């Protein structure tokens, strides 16, 4: 009898879902030191992940990717979208014990726009009333932001912007204590987030410990998070395999060879996690440069590229792109895309006056995956007589090169959503206002008045359905003009240790710390 009770208890223990434990340390690797933990300054994937440990903004995204309140408990959109009124959560403290109020929110927004902050996020907030005066250094206070009560913040815009709430979820607007900042803030940050910085030894280790003042009761579950710095990809994988690291694939993709190896080992199978990435990798063509100024040539290139092979080259970690917008942003079905048709492509080239094809230079970054894909495209285009000379370079050189007018004829590009809204892709990449002599955002130098008009109308439209229709129209038109060939939407694949529980790939943030616990 006693034996059967014991067996039953054991069975129950195995079947019942595990109870979340409080405590434990989560260890991750990072190649380089974080640039800065100042939320107005740091803006790359590892930094954004780390900022999620330290800060909260007014709004955030839940695990379904829905915009929800973070420090704001509720909000109202007033005056036809020109005024926003936020009510703040009560009893929120910074990690140093100071109470967080609406004055801190106002200060954080003002500081973001001060010239000496050198924030790269200023352009997102130029629509706030009085922002231009701050950006030019004429004033220090932001006319469009007021704090009528300790728990109320009001933001006034020059014109309605349906995407404005998404902008308030960007890490740039994370709330820091009023009066803080300066050059050293990036190394000595204070926020309201679930953790606080405990130690940062440059080049070695960054340690975060639980913020005892965190406003969500019982959270976070972990005691401590450690970033082990300076580890190259191979050493990171070896350390993970030996159980010295807990998660793989967070701050950078698992390298191809290691990915194949982990995938082939049975013991790791249950611990892989997959989730879509809000980005698109594409082949861009400069529409101002011959021969790509001819739409027939651009279509021929699009028809000659075998996209499935490109996804295979990335170990299947992606989805063939038929449209520009990633599946995480798209509403409804994706566009049909252009079928792989080398014969048709050759015919089109003949019509465009290139029966023998032509030679050109393909600009791409020297990242190994990008290079592999570039070689695949080179092979595909050779099939229609187009000879690509690959020009690999550092990422910053590529950015400068493709952003210069009439400089890079054809190139490898990618765009990751700053915020999950079609405007972030379509306006940035295809509106003619993005065309500049240098540092252009519109790197294909595509200009279409109709597309411009649709995009501008969408920016003023608050009805979500009507807005989406305008973006859909604009995307379809761009896809028919083909200044770029969408190649694939990457897939995030992470690997966890069996002891790591409660972890899932967040649709927007690099990592969501709150629910993670150690068994």
């Amino acid at each position, binding site marked *: 009898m006693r034996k059967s009770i014991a067996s039953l208890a054991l069975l129950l223990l195995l079947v019942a879902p595990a109870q979340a434990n409080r405590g434990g340390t989560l260890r991750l690797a990072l190649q*380089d*030191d974080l*640039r*800065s933990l*100042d939320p107005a*300054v740091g*803006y*790359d994937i590892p930094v954004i992940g780390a900022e999620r440990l330290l800060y909260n903004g007014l709004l955030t995204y839940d695990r379904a990717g829905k915009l929800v309140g973070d420090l704001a408990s509720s909000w109202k959109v007033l005056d036809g979208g020109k005024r926003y009124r936020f009510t703040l959560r009560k009893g929120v403290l910074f990690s140093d014990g100071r109470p967080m109020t609406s004055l801190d929110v106002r200060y954080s927004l003002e500081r973001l726009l001060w*010239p*000496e902050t*050198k924030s*790269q*996020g*200023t*352009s997102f907030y130029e629509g706030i009333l009085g922002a231009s005066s701050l*950006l030019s250094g004429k004033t220090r206070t932001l006319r469009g932001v007021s704090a009528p009560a300790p728990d109320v913040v009001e933001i006034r815009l020059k014109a309605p912007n349906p995407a404005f709430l998404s902008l308030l979820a960007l890490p740039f607007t994370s709330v820091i204590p009023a009066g803080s900042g300066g*050059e*050293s803030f*990036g*190394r000595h940050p204070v926020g309201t987030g679930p953790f606080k910085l405990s130690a940062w*030894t*440059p*080049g*070695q280790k960054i340690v975060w410990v639980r913020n005892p003042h965190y406003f969500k009761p019982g959270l976070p579950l972990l005691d401590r998070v450690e970033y*082990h*710095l*300076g*580890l*190259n990809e*191979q*050493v990171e994988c*070896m*350390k993970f*395999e*030996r159980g*010295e690291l807990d998660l793989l694939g967070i701050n950078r993709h698992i390298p191809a060879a290691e990915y194949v190896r982990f995938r082939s080992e049975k013991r790791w199978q249950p611990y892989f996690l997959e989730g879509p990435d809000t980005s698109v990798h594409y082949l861009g063509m400069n529409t101002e440069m011959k021969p790509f100024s001819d739409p027939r040539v651009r279509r021929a290139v699009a028809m000659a590229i075998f996209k499935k092979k490109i996804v295979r080259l990335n170990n299947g970690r992606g989805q063939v792109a038929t449209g520009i917008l990633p599946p995480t942003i798209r509403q409804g079905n994706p566009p049909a895309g252009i079928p792989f048709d080398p014969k048709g492509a050759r015919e089109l080239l003949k019509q465009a006056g290139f029966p023998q094809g032509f030679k050109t230079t393909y600009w791409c970054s020297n990242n190994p995956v990008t290079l592999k894909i570039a070689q695949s495209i080179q092979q595909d285009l050779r099939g229609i007589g187009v000879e690509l000379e690959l020009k690999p*370079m*550092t*990422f*910053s*050189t590529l*950015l*400068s*090169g493709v*952003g210069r007018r009439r400089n890079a004829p054809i190139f490898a590009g990618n*765009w*990751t959503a*700053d915020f999950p809204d079609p405007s972030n892709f379509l306006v*940035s990449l295809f509106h003619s206002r*993005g065309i*500049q002599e*240098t*540092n*252009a*955002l519109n790197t294909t130098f595509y200009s279409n008045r109709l597309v411009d008009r649709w995009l501008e109308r969408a920016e003023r439209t608050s009805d979500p359905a009507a807005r989406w229709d305008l973006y859909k129209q604009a995307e379809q038109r761009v896809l028919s003009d083909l200044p770029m060939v969408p190649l694939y939407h990457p897939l995030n694949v992470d690997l966890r240790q069996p002891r790591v529980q409660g972890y899932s790939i967040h649709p927007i943030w690099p990592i969501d710390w709150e629910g993670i616990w150690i068994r």
Partner: protein
Amino acid sequence: MNFSQWTNSTKLTSFALLRRLLGALGVWLGVALLTFAMTYLIPADPVRMIAGAQADPATIERIRAQMHLGEPVVMRFLHYLLGILHGDFGRSYASGVEVLPAILARVPATLQLALGAMIVYLVLGILLGTLSGVEKGFWGRFGDRLGWILTVAGVSLPTFWLGMMLLYGFSYRLSWFPLAGYGTFSHLVLPSLTLGLAGAAAYNRLTRQGLKEAMLQDYIRTARAKGLPEHQVILRHGLRNALLPLVTLLGMDFAALLGGAVLTETVFAWPGVGYQAMQAIFLLDVPMIMGTVLFAATAIVLINLLVDLLYRLLDPRLQG
């Protein structure tokens, strides 16, 4: 030496020292100018690295103005030099931290690795070089063969590959040493070996050659004629003279190592100056690149100067 001879010799030494100091300053300025010119000529924009891939042109221009990158290049260089004279190496574009303290914070790690590598150079290089230089008996032949293998391997094996192999074998497979990192003696062993093996090859060849030449000199014959045991002849008279050229090489290598061993530090996650320099290069963080290069140049110039003086002390023929 009478008094006037002594003062003349001191004057000559001071003059030589002054000449060396002026030369060192020239080298240092040349390095500063070259590094600055190179960072300026690279066809990439440091502002793009800071602003990110998706920043709009207005933001890029605003940051450029805030970083004073719109000023003429000559003015920027002069401002930079003026800053250095005041001990201000500027702030990192990427992280905003002050350059000089950031470099100095990394010096202890680099110094440890440099010393570790030096020990490997000397122990392996001189030991095997002496054995193969003597070339008598079993140990002589053994040392010669081993020295030859070490030389070929040290020169041929890429540091990055060797480091990864040592990590894979001794850390990942055998668990004898930690898998990269910094902090304890056991963390130091594999990076020192990786870095030291390549250098030891040169020391081995140099010691072997030097010892072979020294052993043919008259003073060796004299020492033997005095009835000294062979090991004393080799160690006291042969090796002592053979090692003289090694002082210069050791000084130069040590100075170069202080500038950081980029590949070794990268493989072993060693938080030294070299690794920081590599990060700065990838980010086009001009103040940090300049700071690191100037730090390395200063170390090389100063240590070379020191070696020169030491050499004069060790070899009286060079004095005056």
